[in-house]
């Protein structure tokens, strides 16, 4: 190390050396500051703006997409509910119609049964009437025949 130091010292004597401070320092500082300003205009601002704009664009687009998605979901739900309501209504209508139909059928069946019953009763009545009538005429005939038999057997005077 000593030798190196000597070497450096020797170099410094000739106007040089590793630790040779001179006007390079301030000029380099100024140059660097100018570079900062130039790069600020040429690089940081435009590229930064591009990045921020893109971030903003993505943010707003994704926000819009989210909004639309939410709207779509709300609409779908609304339609679903409307569908459910309509379905319920339709079922009610169907049920009512069925009910009515059944009532109608039942009423008609009852009416038909009543009619049949009535007709049967009427027929039975008529049969009964004819039976009694037939019995009466049979009785009368039997009476006449009996009288004739008696007349024949006993003679006219006794009868």
């Amino acid at each position, binding site marked *: 190390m000593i030798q190196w130091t000597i070497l450096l010292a020797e170099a410094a004597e000739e106007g040089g050396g590793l630790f040779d401070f001179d006007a390079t320092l301030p000029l380099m500082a100024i140059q660097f500051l100018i570079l900062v300003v*130039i790069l600020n205009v*040429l*690089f940081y601002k435009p590229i930064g703006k591009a990045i921020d704009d893109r971030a903003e664009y993505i943010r707003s687009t994704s926000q819009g997409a989210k909004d639309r998605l939410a709207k779509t979901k709300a609409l779908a739900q609304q339609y679903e509910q409307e569908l459910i309501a309509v379905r319920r209504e339709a079922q009610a209508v169907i049920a009512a119609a069925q009910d009515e139909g059944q009532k109608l059928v039942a009423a008609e069946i009852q009416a038909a049964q009543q009619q049949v019953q009535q007709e049967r009763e009427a027929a039975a009545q008529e049969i009964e009437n004819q039976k009694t009538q037939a019995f009466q005429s049979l009785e009368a005939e039997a009476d006449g025949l009996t009288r004739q038999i008696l007349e024949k057997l006993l003679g006219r005077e006794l009868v």
Partner: protein
Amino acid sequence: MEILTGLKGLSFFPLAELEVGKHFYWEIGSIKVHGQVFLASWFVIALLVLISIAATRSIQRVPSGVQNLMEYALEFLRDLAKNQIGEKEYRPWVPFVGTLFLFIFVSNWSGALMPWKVLHLPAGELAAPTNDINTTVALALLTSLAYFYAGFKKRGLGYLTKYIEPTPILLPINILEDFTKPLSLSFRLFGNILADELVVAVLVLLVPLFIPLPVMALGLFTSAIQALIFATLAAAYIGEAIEGHGGEEHHD
């Protein structure tokens, strides 16, 4: 002295030679500057400006090519500044911290990758601008100014209370810190880059083929890490100056 003579003997070797502390002086009026540093730094600056122009020539919403690369770079730098300075305050400091990183990074890599030796200067040799102490000290002093500016702008004269926090006993140490910060910043960068270039040069001197390659690769890695460290520390100092030294705000 044997090593010296040995080195001098080696320097006659035609493939490579080792030059340390020799500068290509320009004299402007009565002041002297290191010409090779400025030539290399102008190259770096031109590279940065050109790539910025290429990236922003036609900005698309869907980035591609150079724009994509530079957007990646900017997001990286923003993250770096954001992590150290904080979400609220980092935005105005992105250009400074980012340029620190870009300038140091491109300088270091240009020193490692560009065949500067092809260009002959009357004295000295072209190398990374960051292997000159003037450059690193300039950057470190700018960093110091930046964090003083940040502290005073944010907290006014209340910034000075950081010197007696947490207790006035630490006043000398706190004052010392303001000197050690730029010192460590500048010497860390300077030492690493110079050492890296010296190691490569010495190895090339000894074995000109293949053997120096791993060391060169390691040099690229170190160079990138040094740029990152410098920018991160600069951002951390700024963030510290803005936030306050005590760190009471950290209990969240």
